[in-house]
């Protein structure tokens, strides 16, 4: 069997005897006989490292890793600089716990402080937490932050990622609140409908920028409406896009959240990812999760600690702002190293190259027979129609190692391009699409 216990059988006996026991069984005498397991668990016996590796390699080999990815919809195929994993694989970072003991966790704490700063810069907000589970839970927590006794209405645009919407709904089910959906119009939030839905109970409005269809929402107009209604404005945003797009801070969002996966995390079948959350100053103490603050030690030396813990479950228990304990610390560090390696210029290139490739893709798809469904400005995702059954097209693309757009309802596909796509790849894709669509 595989074994990570360090003590040998002899040492175990020696230790048992040293403290007055004859066997392991005696250590478990508090466990009532009738609930003790007799015999073995019905799982395989332990294996060697080689065998387990081969078993897992066998499973991994049953997956298809597409060399050409044109799908996003919440998980994005971006380049991860080599330095990112090189840094975050350092054993101290990997194996540490949450930095409860600040004096021997300054590295960890400082890196979170730096992460918080970068998230604030990216979003244009005042304060960031140390991360939550992913973009969907960040959205849910962001929405819950806005609830108060008087205001319990939550409006969410129909043009947000459906998984995010569903996660918000699940969280709201916990709070016994029903989420109201703002309809979409031409692929974006219907502002007229929003205006009508806002009322004195509305706690907040949640939209996504760019939205699920890749479209750039009229974020300023929506913000004005929300604030006129004295509700809070919560925006889910793509972090790469923020290198070039107007920031939530600039259009006066109260809370900005998002999925941090594009900042250095692999697609990894959906996780672990990174939920980032940032807020305006007046919402600071409603932020859930860990927050690191700068302070000084007994000698006046700069240092960092977990702070504002009066919000948290381990202090406040049922009065906490959230139940979150573990977050996605190592993913947040990946995001920090990613942003440091990219710098402003690299981030700009990731954004510009992705958007430009997507526009080139849209053009080529249009020529090939898959016309864009909406005419609004978009970032790096967009919806097209498809003259044939989407399954037929996607299967053909799959044969060529291409993961095509995500099939939506009907004959529609949600496409995505990033800086990892090349012109040659897109031209090839377009050729295949044309061939299939003109059959």
């Amino acid at each position, binding site marked *: 069997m*595989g074994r990570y*216990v360090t*003590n040998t059988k002899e*040492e*175990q006996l020696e*230790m048992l005897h040293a403290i007055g026991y004859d066997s392991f069984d005696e250590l*478990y005498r508090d466990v009532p006989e009738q*609930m003790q397991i007799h015999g*073995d668990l019905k*799982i395989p016996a*332990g294996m060697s490292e080689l065998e*387990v590796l081969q078993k*897992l390699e*066998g499973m991994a080999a049953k997956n298809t*890793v*597409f060399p050409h990815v044109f*799908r996003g919809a919440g998980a994005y195929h971006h380049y991860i600089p080599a330095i990112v994993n090189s840094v975050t694989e350092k054993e*101290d970072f990997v194996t*540490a*716990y949450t930095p409860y003991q600040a*004096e021997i966790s*300054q590295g*960890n704490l400082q890196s979170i402080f730096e992460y918080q700063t970068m998230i604030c*810069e990216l979003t244009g907000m005042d304060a960031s937490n140390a991360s939550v*589970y*992913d*973009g969907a*839970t960040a959205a849910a927590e962001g929405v819950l932050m806005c609830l108060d006794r008087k205001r319990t209405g939550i409006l969410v645009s129909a043009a947000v990622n459906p998984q995010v919407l569903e*996660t918000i709904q699940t969280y709201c*089910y*916990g709070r016994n609140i029903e989420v109201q959906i703002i309809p979409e119009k031409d692929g974006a939030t219907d502002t007229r409908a929003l205006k009508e839905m806002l009322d004195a109970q509305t706690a907040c409005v949640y939209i996504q920028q760019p939205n699920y269809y890749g479209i750039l929402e009229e974020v300023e107009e929506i913000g004005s409406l929300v604030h006129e209604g004295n509700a809070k404005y919560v925006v889910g945003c793509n972090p790469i896009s923020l290198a070039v797009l*107007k920031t939530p801070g600039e259009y006066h969002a109260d809370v900005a959240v998002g999925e941090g996966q594009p900042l250095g995390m692999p697609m*990894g*079948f*959906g*996780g672990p990812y990174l939920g980032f959350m940032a807020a305006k100053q007046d919402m600071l103490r409603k932020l859930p999760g860990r927050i690191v*603050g*700068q302070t000084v*030690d007994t000698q006046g030396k*700069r240092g960092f*600690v977990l702070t*504002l*813990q009066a919000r948290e*479950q*381990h202090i406040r*228990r*049922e009065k*906490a702002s959230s139940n979150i304990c*573990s977050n996605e*610390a190592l*993913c947040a*560090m990946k995001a920090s*190293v990613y942003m440091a*390696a*990219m*710098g402003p210029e690299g981030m700009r290139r990731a954004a*510009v*190259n992705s958007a*430009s490739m997507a526009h080139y893709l849209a053009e080529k798809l249009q020529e090939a027979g898959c016309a864009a469904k909406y005419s609004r400005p978009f970032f790096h995702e967009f919806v097209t129609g498809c003259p044939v059954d989407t399954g037929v097209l996607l299967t053909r693309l*799959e044969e060529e190692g291409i993961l095509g757009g995500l099939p939506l309802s009907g004959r529609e596909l949600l496409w995505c391009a990033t800086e990892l796509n090349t012109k040659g790849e897109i031209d090839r894709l377009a050729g295949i699409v044309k061939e299939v669509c003109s059959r």
Partner: protein
Amino acid sequence: MKLIFERSVRGRGCSVLPECEVPVWDFQEYGREKELRLPEVSENDISRHYTELAKRTHGVNDGFYPLGSCTMKYNPKINERTAALNGFTGVHPLQPEHTVQGCLEVLKTAEQVFCEITGMDRMTFQPAAGAHGEFTGLLLIKAYHDSRNDEKRTKIIVPDSAHGTNPASAVMAGYAVVNIPSDPDGCVNLQKLREAVGEDTAGLMLTNPNTVGLFDKNILEITRIVHDAGGLVYYDGANLNAIMGVTRPGDMGFDVIHLNLHKTFSTPHGGGGPGSGPVGCKDFLSRFLPSVQVEGDGPYTFTRQPDSIGMVKAFYGNFLVVVKALTYALMLGKDGLLEASQNAVLNANYLMEKLADKYKMPYHRTCMHEFVMSLEQEHEQIGVSAMDIAKALLDYGIHPPTMYFPLIVAEALMVEPTETESKENLDEIIRAFEEIYEQARTNPEVVKAAPHVTPVGRLDEVQAARKPHLKYSYDE
């Protein structure tokens, strides 16, 4: 040391991406107004910066880490290798099912293994951490009562010895929390429990072994009391490391559980995450499970449960963490898991017995995988607190135990050595604890001023909270 922003020089950078090879799209009026201020640093700057940060971070590889209830066991390297396989990392979560059969097999196999270990029937891997699992599990309970139109069940009972996440999760699930006092030994007071349950009881949340490290012998009676009152019983899996292969929550009468894969199943904690908090349940609750379940036996399919509570996050959970945990479970197998638990309990008892000469053990009897000591007496007599002892340990390169938890013990230090520490390490640690104790008695001021050799001394937490300084000020 410097912040990375203090190393930044305008115009410096790394060479990651090429220029765009197609016409550049113009963002026009959607463009950001304010310049993006991120560090402008070379790769050498980054390498040295994080090297310095790593030196200021204590991991399991740096030494003993007996952080109670956190199970800081050794994190095997094969876990990192399997989770880094391109066949897992390179997979988009929205690929067609037939192209992700390997991922589905991982989830299905993990479900089978962890259900068997815990005595549950089904399991979801969507929750990303223990607290997230608690929330999810409580929503299952809620959905269950809702499905029966049993609307008066609005309360969750939580012992006062419980982890803080328990009551916080209950509130997130829309419940009122009923705190019940524990017996002096941290076990559930059956009388108080009987008084607390009733028609409004949605459920009880419990760890067993409990948070003082004792196995609650009355567990069958406890779960029966709650069930009899119409409530369900939730198992907080934080302490599962004591009992794998010995006894199972499912056999104790629990209906829903969560596991902390980053505790019991050796996936690294990453300085605070990512974790993974799968939720297991008995069959009658499985129709409420979130998101999708893997069905079939190859080919596998994702199937949505009929009365699902809905997704609790995007996609299928922290998948790559599940890969690590499965790797570990397969490595150890039925025999190794049992031995891991046995040795975890042995190490805790050994350490407790050896320290009991000097340190007060409020529950001085056979413990499970962890134990609690109390510095109450020393605090009163010589003014040395649990925190002081903890800080003195830092100078020995030892991560302190969990401080001031559980709340039911004054000046508590909760010690969990885990099974991967060796006897000689424990013996060394015992010497350190003893030396500190002697020093506390003979020269308490030195202990109260500890730590002395860490990069920074004790930090002013009050100032940090009063004047929050949460990001680098570019104007500084």
